[in-house]
C-alpha cells in the first residue's frame, strides 16, 4: 500500500484542477460533488497506508527529479513512516469532515466553487508538506499552505479587514519562511543534501554551533507558520476567513506544520540542547501569553484563535523538552477538539447570522442542543478534564516538562492550564447557558444547523472524547502513541540491520563528542528516577486536573452563578489588566509603529531618493551637457568658433570690396596692372639677388 501513497495528494489536486478550470462557469453549486469525494478517496487511502505502517511497512516513494543543479539534487519523493502516517490520518480525517461540513456552511455563498477549489488545493499542499521526503519538499508544502491560507482568509475579499488579514498572514509567514530557507541552506551547505534520511544520517557531523544555528533558523520558520512569539500576530486576524477554514487551516492542520517540522527534525534538535531550550521557552511563553489574552476577548472565534496559539505553544513546549511524541500527540488531539470547537462556533454563527460577540449570546443550548453538546465535549477536552482527549496529551507534556527539570515552565504550563479551562468555560457559559441576551431580530432566526453540519460535529466529538486513549500506558509503561512513533522519534530508521547499527554507533559517537549525550542521558536518568520514586506522575496529573477544575469553577462562579459581577469587578480592580489583555498587549500597534510603518517610510524615502538624487544625477548630467551646449551656442559660438568663420568671411568681403575696384573690365587697365606687377617683381628680384 505504501507505494500508492503518492495518490493521496493527487486526489485533491485533481479536484482542484477540475474545479479550478470549470468551477466558475459550469460546476458552480455542484463543486462539492468533486471536492468531497476527492477527499474521501484521500482519507480512504490514508487509512490503508496507516494500517500498513501499523504493520511495520514503511518506505519512500520516488516520483521524479525536481531541481538538479550543481550540488543540489532534489527529488519529488514521499516518505511514509510512522510520523507521516499519523499526520496523514490527522490531515485527511479532519479535511474530509470539514469539507462535508462546508457543504452546509457555505451553501449560500456565491463563491461556492472557488471555496472548494482553494480548499482542495490546501489539502494537496498540506499532504505534500506531510509526505515530502526532504526539507525542500516540505518547504513547497509549507509555502503552498501559506498561499491557500492567504486565499482563504481573504476569501471574502470585498471586506477590507479580510483582505488585510490575508496579506498580514502571508507576509508574516514569509518572514518565518526566510528563516526556514536559511536554515535549509545551512543544512545543505554542510551536509550536501536536503533529504531527511541523508541529513539525519550525517547530522552528527555538524559542529554544535552549526546545528544550533540551523535548528534555530528552522524554528524561526515554525514561529511564523505555527503562530508563536514573535510572529503569532497573524493568526487571530486570520479568523476573518470562513469558519471551516479557521477550523481546518488555522486550528487543525496548517498551523501545526511547525510542530511537525520540529518533531521531524528531532535528530537535529537533540544535537542542539540550546535550540531545544529556546523552543521550550518560546512555546511556554506563547502558551501563557495567548491564554491571558484569551480570557479577555468577547469574540467567540478570537477566543478560540488565542486558544489555538496557546495550545500550539504547549506542543512546542513538549518538543522543546524532548517529548516529541507527546507534542505530536497533542497535535492530534488538538486537531480533533479545536477543529470541533471551531465547527461548533461556525454552527453558532450560522444560527446567529454571523454575529460572534458573546455578550449578546446566551442560552443557545435551548435552540441548538447538538452544537451545545459537542462544543462542551470539546471544551472539556481543551480544559484537560479526563477522560477527554486533551487531558492525556497535555498531561504527557507537562509531566515531561517537570521530569526534565523545567520546573518554572511546568508551573507556567500548569497555570496556563488553569487559564485555559477558565476562558474555555467562560465561552461555554456565555454562549450556551445563562440569560438570553440575543437581540430580537436574530432570536427568531435561531435554529439547529442542518444534518450535513451536525454529523461532522458528532463525528469529531466522538474523536475528541476518545483519541486520548492512545495515550494510555502499555506494559512497558510507555504510552501506546509514543511507542508507535518511537522508530522515527528516538532513533534512526534504516533499511538494513547493518546500516541501522552503523547509524546507531554514529549517533552515539557524535552525541558523545558534543556532550549532548550526557545531557540526554542525564535527563533520561533523572526522568526515570523521578518517575519511579520521588515524585509519582499521579501527583502531577492531579495538580493539572485540579487546575483545570479550578478554572471551570471560576468561570462558573463568574458567568453562570454571577457570584460576583465580572464587569464591575474588572472595572473596579483590574481594569488596567483587562485593558491590557483586551487590547492584546498592544502588540499589533507596537509592531505597526516600530516595524511596518518604518518600512513604509523607508520605502517612500528610497523612492524620493531615487527620484531626486540618483535620477537627479542622471538628469543633472544631461542638464550640464545641455547648458554647456547652450553656452556654446550663445557665447562661444558667435565670438570664437563662429567668429573665426565669420571673420574669414569678413576678410574675404573686405578684400572683395578692395579688389572690386580693380576689376574694371578695361583691357588697358589690366595691361597697366600687368606692367606694374612685372615692374614690381623685377624690382624685387633685383633688390634681393643683385644688391
Amino acid at each position, binding site marked *: 500500500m505504501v507505494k500508492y501513497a503518492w495518490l493521496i495528494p493527487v486526489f485533491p489536486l485533481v479536484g482542484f484542477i477540475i474545479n479550478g478550470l470549470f468551477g*466558475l462557469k459550469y460546476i458552480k453549486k455542484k463543486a462539492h460533488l468533486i471536492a468531497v469525494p476527492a477527499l474521501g478517496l484521500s482519507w480512504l487511502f490514508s487509512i490503508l497506508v496507516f494500517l500498513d505502517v501499523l504493520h511495520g511497512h514503511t518506505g519512500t516513494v520516488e516520483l*521524479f527529479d525536481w531541481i538538479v543543479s550543481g*550540488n543540489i539534487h532534489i527529488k519529488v519523493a514521499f516518505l511514509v513512516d510512522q510520523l507521516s502516517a499519523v499526520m496523514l490520518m490527522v490531515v485527511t480525517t479532519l479535511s474530509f469532515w470539514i469539507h462535508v461540513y462546508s457543504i452546509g456552511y457555505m451553501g449560500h455563498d456565491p463563491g461556492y466553487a472557488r471555496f472548494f477549489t482553494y480548499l482542495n488545493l490546501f489539502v494537496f499542499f498540506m499532504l505534500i508538506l506531510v509526505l515530502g521526503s526532504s526539507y525542500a519538499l516540505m518547504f513547497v508544502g509549507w509555502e503552498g499552505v501559506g498561499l491557500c491560507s492567504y486565499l482563504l482568509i481573504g476569501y471574502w475579499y*470585498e471586506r*477590507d479587514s479580510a483582505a488585510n488579514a490575508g496579506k498580514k498572514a502571508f507576509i508574516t509567514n514569509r518572514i518565518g519562511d526566510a528563516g526556514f530557507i*536559511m536554515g535549509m541552506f545551512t543544512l545543505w551547505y554542510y551536509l*550536501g543534501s536536503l533529504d531527511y534520511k541523508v541529513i539525519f544520517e550525517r547530522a552528527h557531523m555538524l559542529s*554544535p554551533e*552549526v546545528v544550533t544555528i540551523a535548528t534555530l533558523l528552522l524554528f524561526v520558520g515554525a514561529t511564523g507558520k505555527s503562530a508563536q512569539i514573535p510572529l503569532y500576530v497573524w493568526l487571530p486576524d486570520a479568523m476573518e476567513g470562513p469558519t471551516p477554514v479557521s477550523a481546518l487551516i488555522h486550528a487543525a492542520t496548517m498551523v501545526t506544520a511547525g510542530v511537525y517540522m520540529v518533531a521531524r527534525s528531532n535528530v537535529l534538535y537533540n544535537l542542539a540542547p540550546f535550540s531545544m531550550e529556546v523552543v521550550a521557552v518560546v512555546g511556554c511563553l506563547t502558551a501563557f501569553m495567548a491564554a491571558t489574552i484569551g480570557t479577555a476577548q468577547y469574540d467567540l472565534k478570537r477566543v478560540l484563535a488565542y486558544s489555538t496559539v496557546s495550545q500550539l505553544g504547549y506542543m512546542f513546549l513538549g518538543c522543546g523538552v524532548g517529548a516529541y511524541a507527546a507534542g505530536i500527540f497533542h497535535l492530534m488531539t488538538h486537531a480533533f477538539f479545536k477543529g470541533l470547537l471551531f465547527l461548533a462556533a461556525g454552527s453558532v454563527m450560522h444560527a446567529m447570522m454571523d454575529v460572534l460577540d458573546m455578550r449578546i449570546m446566551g442560552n443557545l443550548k435551548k435552540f441548538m442542543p447538538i452544537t451545545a453538546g459537542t462544543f462542551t465535549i470539546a471544551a472539556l477536552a481543551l480544559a484537560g478534564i479526563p477522560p477527554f482527549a486533551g487531558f492525556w496529551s497535555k498531561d504527557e507534556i507537562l509531566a515531561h516538562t517537570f521530569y526534565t527539570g523545567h520546573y518554572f515552565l511546568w508551573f507556567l504550563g500548569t497555570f496556563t492550564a488553569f487559564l485555559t479551562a477558565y476562558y474555555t468555560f467562560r465561552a461555554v457559559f456565555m454562549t450556551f447557558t445563562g440569560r438570553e441576551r440575543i437581540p430580537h431580530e436574530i432570536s427568531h432566526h435561531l435554529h439547529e444547523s442542518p444534518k450535513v453540519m451536525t454529523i461532522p460535529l458528532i463525528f469529531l466529538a466522538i474523536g475528541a472524547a476518545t483519541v486520548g486513549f492512545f495515550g494510555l500506558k502499555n506494559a512497558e509503561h510507555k504510552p501506546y502513541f509514543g511507542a508507535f512513533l518511537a522508530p522515527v522519534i528516538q532513533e534512526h530508521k534504516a533499511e538494513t540491520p547493518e546500516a541501522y547499527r552503523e547509524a546507531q554507533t554514529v549517533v552515539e559517537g557524535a552525541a558523545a563528542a558534543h556532550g549532548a549525550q550526557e545531557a540526554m542521558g542525564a535527563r533520561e536518568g533523572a526522568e526515570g528516577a523521578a518517575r519511579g520514586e520521588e515524585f509519582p506522575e499521579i501527583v502531577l496529573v492531579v495538580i493539572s486536573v485540579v487546575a483545570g477544575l479550578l478554572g471551570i469553577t471560576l468561570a462558573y462562579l463568574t458567568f453562570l452563578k454571577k457570584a460576583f459581577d465580572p464587569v464591575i469587578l474588572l472595572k473596579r480592580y483590574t481594569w488596567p489588566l483587562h485593558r491590557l489583555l483586551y487590547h492584546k498587549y498592544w502588540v499589533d500597534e507596537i509592531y505597526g509603529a516600530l516595524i511596518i510603518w518604518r518600512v513604509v517610510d523607508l520605502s517612500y524615502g528610497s523612492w524620493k531618493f531615487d527620484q531626486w538624487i540618483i535620477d537627479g544625477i542622471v538628469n543633472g548630467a544631461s542638464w550640464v551637457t545641455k547648458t554647456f551646449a547652450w553656452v556654446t551656442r550663445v557665447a562661444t559660438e558667435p565670438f570664437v568658433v563662429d567668429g573665426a568663420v565669420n571673420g574669414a568671411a569678413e576678410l574675404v568681403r573686405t578684400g572683395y570690396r578692395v579688389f572690386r575696384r580693380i576689376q574694371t573690365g578695361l583691357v588697358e587697365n589690366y595691361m597697366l596692372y600687368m606692367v606694374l606687377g612685372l615692374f614690381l617683381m623685377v624690382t624685387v628680384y633685383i633688390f634681393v639677388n643683385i644688391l
Partner: protein
Amino acid sequence: MQPNFGTNVFGFPILSLITYLPLAGALFLLFVNKEKVKFIKYFAFAVALVDFFISIPLWFAFDRTTWHFQFVERFSWIKALGVEYYFGVDGISLLLLLLTTFLTAIAVLSSFNYIQERDKEYYIAMLVLETGMLGVFASLDLFLFYVFWEVMLVPMYFLIGIWGYERRLYAAIKFFLYTLFGSLFMLIAIISMYFLYHHTTGEWSFNYVKWVYNMHIPGGLQFWLFLAFFLSFAIKVPLFPFHTWLPDAHVEAPTAGSVILAGVLLKMGTYGFVRFSLPLFSEATRYFIPFIALLSIIAIIYGALCALAQEDMKKLVAYSSVSHMGLVMLAMFALNPMGLQGSILQMINHGVSTGALFLIVGIIYERRHTRLIREFGGLSKVVPVFATFFMITMLSSIGLPGLNGFIGEFTCLAGVFKYNWRYAAFAVTGVILGAGYMLWLYQRTMFGRITNEKNIGIADMNLREWIYMTPLVISFIWIGIYPKPIFNIMKVTVDHLVEQVNPDYFKQKAQHEAKLKKALFYPAKSPDFAGGPSPLKMSEGEKSHGLD
C-alpha cells in the same frame, strides 16, 4: 590550445534564418499599403510565430553533452579588418534565443488592439527589433555583436518615442543616450582588445572563441576592460545606481515595448556579463565580486522598497525588475554552478513573469486608460478570469513553490549561500519585500469593494488575451514543476564557464567530497572528528567554496 569553433548539425544556416526572418518580414511590410491594417497585424504575428516555431528544433537538436558552440555559421565578412560573420549558440544563449522568439510572438499579438496609429511602422519596428535581439544572442564575433547591440536600440527608441505615453520623448531619449553612453565604453574596450589580440598573435580578429582561448589579458588591463564592459552591461541590466532609465522607459513604453524591454533587453546586460566579462576577464571578475555583490544587494532591497512606494502599476513592476535583476547578478557572481544556473534560469523566469505582469497591466490599461493603482479596487468581482491570471502571474513573480519563480530564486539563493551566507541573508529580505509589494498591489487593485464607478462595466479577458496569456502560464507551471530539461540544457556550458572563471571551484569541491566521505565511513576513527569541531566546519579561507 586549438580553439574549437563548434559544429552545425543542421548543415544549413538555421541561426541566420531565425535571425533574419523577422527582418525579411519587415522589408516585405514596407511594400504593403498602410491602410491594410488587419493584414499587417496578422502578417507580423505570423512572422513572429513562424520564427518561434523554427527556433524550436534547436531545442531538440541541441547536443547537451558539449559546451562547444553549436549550429555554427562562420565565414569571413570584412577581410581587411579580420571581421568574421560568426553565429553560434551554447546552452546559455540558446535559452535566451528561445525566450526572445517566444516573447516577441506574444508581444506582437498583444499589440493588436493597443496600437491605433501608424500600425505599419509599429510592426516593422517590432520585427526589426527582434532581428536585433536575436543577433545579439547569436553573434560570436565582437564586431558583429556590437553592430547588433546598437541596431537594437533604434527600433526600441522609436517604439517608446512614437507609441509611448505622455513623456515618451524624454523617456526615449534617456533610454537611448544612457545605453549608448555605456556602449561606447564597451566599444573602446573591444577595440583595445582587438589591438591586444593582434599584438599577442599577429592576427587581426574579433572572433570570440579565439579571444577567449588564445589571449591572456594582463591583470591591470583586465581591470579597466572589465570596468568598461561593466558600465555598458550594468546600465542594461540595470544595476543600481544605473537603473533610473528603466522606470521611465517602462512607464512610457507601449505594453509590448515593456514586455520586450523587461523580457529580453534587460537580459542582454546579464547575458553580456556571462558571455564576455566572466570568461574574458576572469581575474578581474573575481576581484570585483564584493563590489558587484554590494551593488546587487542594494538593488535587491532598494528596488523592492521603491516598488513598495509606487502608485503607478507599471512603475511598480519596473522597480520589481530592478530587484529581481539584482538577484540575477548576485547569483551570477557567486561563480559556482548553482549560482550561474540559477541566474540564467532566473533570467528566463523574469522574462516570462515580468513580461506577463506588463501584459496584465496592459490589459487593464486598454480598458481603463489609467495605470494608477488608486483608480482601481474590487476588480475581482468584475473580471474574475483576469483576476485569476493576475494572481498566478503574481505568485510566479514572488516565487511560490510549484511555479517558475521559486526554482530560480531557490537555485540562485543556494548558489549565493554557498559563496557567502551573509549575501544570501540580505538577498532573502528581497523575497519578503517582494511578497509585500506584490500582494499589496493585488489587494489594492483586485480586492475590496468597487469604489470607482468606472470599474463597474469593464470586460473580462477576450479570446486574444487568453491566447497570449495561456502559454505564459503554462511556462510558469512547466518550469515550476519540471525544470530539469532547462537545467540539462545549460549544465555542461555552465560547468565549463565555472572552470574558466573560477578554476579553483572544482578542485575544492573534490577535496571536500573526499573529506566528507572519510568522515561518513569512519566516524569513530576519524581523528579530527572525535572530539573537536566537525571537519565540516569551514575555516575562513575555505568558506567560499563549501562542501557538496
